[in-house]
């Protein structure tokens, strides 16, 4: 994986601990999640019904879709609770100094 | 410069500008303005709306479109267009020919003089408004903007800038088909066209219209073209109208269309639609059986490839007793193409002895092709026979095996399978040569 896909998305101070915030990177909308000062990026689309995941509540490493309550592990994208059954794409994140970089060209979908 | 731009986009100023430049009568200006007002008030649809599910409507930014000017240059002979030539080769001598070619910026319209003598009218809509103002005014009374119209229909009613009128007087039986071919504009900027087609068949008349929308494939990077067409058909008492509509558009066109048909006593309406290409095709086919004895037959064949998306919504309204309707839609999808078929049969309380049948079959050829099917029934009368069926499935493995054994290559096998899948529908088309023509277009798409 080359590092060329990484694009600066935010300052670390933009996303408070325990919250998620939505950013548009190219054509991809991502929810950037701050879990105990570690950053994870997932697609901002619930795999159940297209709900806006980034507007959901983040508890530990689980984010809940505000529309129907589906939950995903933001580290792996894995669906943890119905009504979602398939994983949401995740993207590599790098923190350099105080800035958060995300590589939206390299998405991973865990099974 | 900013003002000029505004005048060309989908904006209220454009409505007045169109009406003025075309020298339209005041009733039409009023009608456009009324449509604009409701259009402006009604919310933009989103993919959360049932009718627009899985389309890319959320990405369609209307503010980026420029409405194209109506074509004014008259060609002396029909422009050379692939779709037109292929149609005429199979359909034979047409009763009349209408061409809007945005590539050569010309328009062409002709009608068999014998028919013209009998009072048949086949004209570009702008010309019809000038030459037959009273008739057009009367016809447009039925097409007044309604609060219940959807946003795109209202947009068309406010901004229509092309299209045609086909009028057949009482008792006139037209043999050959009227043929209309539109070559849509493509260019770097988003261009918008609003064709409005009006077909009126008076009592006991018979008429056929073949309408094709196409555009040139371009290797160059183009912006999205928006085609928003509205076709109104009025089938008079005992009249028979047959329509064949073909969309063969490139990946640069977002096509929205509505066909709205009213069928009167003992009238018959046959429509076959062929969706053979387009970035997004969203088509509503609305058929209202308003008087007893009316009958409609709506058929569709759809072949998608690449990332094309097709949404077909059929609406059959049975509003009076003793009417019948059939719907038969077949959708074949290659690659990552997708389709949503939604059909609704509505039977009013008074519409006793309705007989309605609806069938939708989907053939998935591509591993990532997607098909949704939502056939619906809303029945308020009790003495009815209504049924629907839908299937989704891959190519029959035995069939593939058999074709393989015959030594056919993949494309050949695909063509045989898709033609076989469509055959039931194509065989029912009453227009001479039309089945062959569509069959060839299907093959072209497979081998391209």
């Amino acid at each position, binding site marked *: 994986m080359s590092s060329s896909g990484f694009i600066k998305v935010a300052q670390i101070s933009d996303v408070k601990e325990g919250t998620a915030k939505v950013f548009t990177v190219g054509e991809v909308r991502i929810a950037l999640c701050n879990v105990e000062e570690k950053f994870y990026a997932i697609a901002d689309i619930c795999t159940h019904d297209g709900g806006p995941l980034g507007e959901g509540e983040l508890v530990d490493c689980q984010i809940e879709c*505000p529309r129907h309550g589906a939950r995903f592990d933001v580290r792996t994208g894995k669906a943890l609770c119905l009504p979602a059954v398939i994983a949401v794409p995740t993207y590599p994140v790098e923190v350099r100094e105080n800035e958060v970089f995300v590589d939206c060209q390299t998405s991973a979908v865990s099974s | 410069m900013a003002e000029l731009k505004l005048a060309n986009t989908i904006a209220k100023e454009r409505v007045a500008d169109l009406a003025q430049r075309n020298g339209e009568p005041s009733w039409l200006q009023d009608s456009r303005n009324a449509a604009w007002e409701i259009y402006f008030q009604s919310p933009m649809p989103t993919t959360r709306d049932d009718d627009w599910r899985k389309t890319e409507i959320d990405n369609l930014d209307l503010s980026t479109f420029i409405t194209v000017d109506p074509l004014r240059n008259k060609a002396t002979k029909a422009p050379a267009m692939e779709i037109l030539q292929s149609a005429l080769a199979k359909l034979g001598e047409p009763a009349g020919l209408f061409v809007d070619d945005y590539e050569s910026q010309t328009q062409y319209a002709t009608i068999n003089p014998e028919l013209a003598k009998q009072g048949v009218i086949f004209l570009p809509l702008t010309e019809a408004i000038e030459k037959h103002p009273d008739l057009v005014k009367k016809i447009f009374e039925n097409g007044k903007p309604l609060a219940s119209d959807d946003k795109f229909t209202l947009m068309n009613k406010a901004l229509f800038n092309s299209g045609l009128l086909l009028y057949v007087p009482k008792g006139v039986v037209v043999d050959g088909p009227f043929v209309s071919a539109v070559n849509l504009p493509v260019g770097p900027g988003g261009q918008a066209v609003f064709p409005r087609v009006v077909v009126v068949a008076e009592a006991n008349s018979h008429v056929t219209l073949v309408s094709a929308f196409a555009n040139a494939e371009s290797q160059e990077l183009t912006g999205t073209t928006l085609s928003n067409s509205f076709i109104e058909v009025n089938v008079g008492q005992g009249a028979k109208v047959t329509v064949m509509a073909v969309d063969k558009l490139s990946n640069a066109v977002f096509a929205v269309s509505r066909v709205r048909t009213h069928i009167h006593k003992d009238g018959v309406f046959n429509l076959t639609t062929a969706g053979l290409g387009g970035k997004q095709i969203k088509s509503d086919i609305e058929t209202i059986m308003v008087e007893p004895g009316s009958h409609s037959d709506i058929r569709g064949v759809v072949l998608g490839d690449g990332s094309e998306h097709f949404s077909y919504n059929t609406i059959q309204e049975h509003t009076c007793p003793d009417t019948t309707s059939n719907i038969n839609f077949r959708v074949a999808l290659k690659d990552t193409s997708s389709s949503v078929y939604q059909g609704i049969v509505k039977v009013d309380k008074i519409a006793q002895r309705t007989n309605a049948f609806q069938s939708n079959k989907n053939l998935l050829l591509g591993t990532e092709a997607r098909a949704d099917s939502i056939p619906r029934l809303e029945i308020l009368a009790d003495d009815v026979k209504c049924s*629907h069926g839908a*299937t989704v499935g891959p190519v029959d493995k035995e069939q593939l095996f058999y074709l393989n054994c015959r030594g056919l290559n993949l494309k050949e096998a695909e063509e045989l399978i898709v033609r076989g899948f469509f055959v039931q529908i194509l065989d029912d088309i009453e227009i001479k040569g039309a089945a062959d023509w569509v069959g060839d277009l299907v093959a072209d798409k497979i081998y391209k």
Partner: protein
Amino acid sequence: MSADLAPALNNKGLPESIKSESNKSAGLEGIGNDYKYGFSDKEDYIFKSGRGLTREIVEKISAMKNEPEWMLKFRLRALDIFNKKPMPTWGNCGLLNDIDFENIFYYIKPSQKQETDWDEVPEGIKNTFDRLGIPEAERKFLAGVTAQYESEVVYHSIREDLEKQGVLFLDMDSGLRLHEDIVREHFATVIPAADNKFSALNSAVWSGGSFIWVPPGVKIEIPLQAYFRINAENMGQFERTLIIAEPGSFVHYIEGCTAPTYSTDSLHSAVVELIAKPGAHIRYTTIQNWSKNVYNLVTKRAVAHEDAKVEWVDGNLGSKLTMKYPAIYLLGERAHGEVLSIAFAGEDQHQDAGAKIIHAAKNTTSMIISKSICKNGGRTSYRGLIKVYPKATGVKSSVKCDALLLDDKSRSDTYPTMEIDEKDVNIEHEATVSKVGEEQLFYLMSRGLNQDEATAMIVNGFFEPFTKELPLEYAVELNRLIQLEMEGSVG
């Protein structure tokens, strides 16, 4: 479907008197106009909350049940979600928006404690259940019975041999108290509070319902049964049921429900979660016969893991408005789901029912059969979903919906949705709407039946795929009721 279950409820060896009594099975009598369970009892309650829903009521419910902290938190969060979520904008919005949430009693505790000996159940409640036709002998015969009155389970029993095999069959409150680990692991994993407005409401104020855990390999041959009764006016009943079938096990659960007839509305909003682990089989039968002033807005969902099988057998006869779409998520390979339902809507009734099957694994199969009848201005709607996710190859699904309209005042809608994201599948859907066939009627009448009898016979035949899956006495009763209902309905 396993037909071997059908005779299981035969009251073999019971005295004649009891047999005839038990024919009046709860939940089946009086569909349509002839509602026999419309009587009510004098209210004599331990605790009745005020009208309306507040944070205090939620806290009080949790405190009275002595719940762990996590459950209180879950309830309070669900209350927030309920308050924020808009009402559904689809379905019968006219009726839905008539629900007056401020006027409902959210929690009523009818008795001090739950009894396992029928004699100890308070006299009034006991009489009610006797009038509903749930005699003691039948309760003894069944593998297990639970009876819920208002918000709490007042009576509960389970056969000793099942208990010895480790089967847990408790009311949900006791389940939480005695088996907190199992509950916490599974509770709300199938239906999260935020799933919809009514699951959020249930999550905030739930009380009662059944908790069933079947150990690996244990097959319970006789159904477990539950009765739900609403008594008070403007009552809200929010039971919560969780059934976990461990690998290779089998359980059949039957529920029936009735309520008094009042001029104002009550609300029943249950959440039912089923988990069928690999190779397990759950069958869940409902005979819903609420009175015509009850809103029945229920969320039912099951997950079926590898080789598991889930069946919803769902009869909707009563209520003012029912909105219920039992769902099955087929998550493991070769899992199988079936929904078999009937709906009957008479005057002032709307049965908006259906089924959802989600195919999320290879070679999963499903079948839906839905039958509905409406008459006297009643309305039935079938609303269904078949979804196939990418990579779920080899899926097979068939859906068949048939509706009969008995007069021109009634209405039938069919709204099926198929979302197919995988090529290698076979999905079929068929639906018909018609009236009773003239030819069939003519034939039967030429054999000496009058029109009512002939219509009843045709209707019985129409419902047959459903009734044949019911325990025999339920089936007999249903046929008898349809016959009653058809008298004077045509001609």
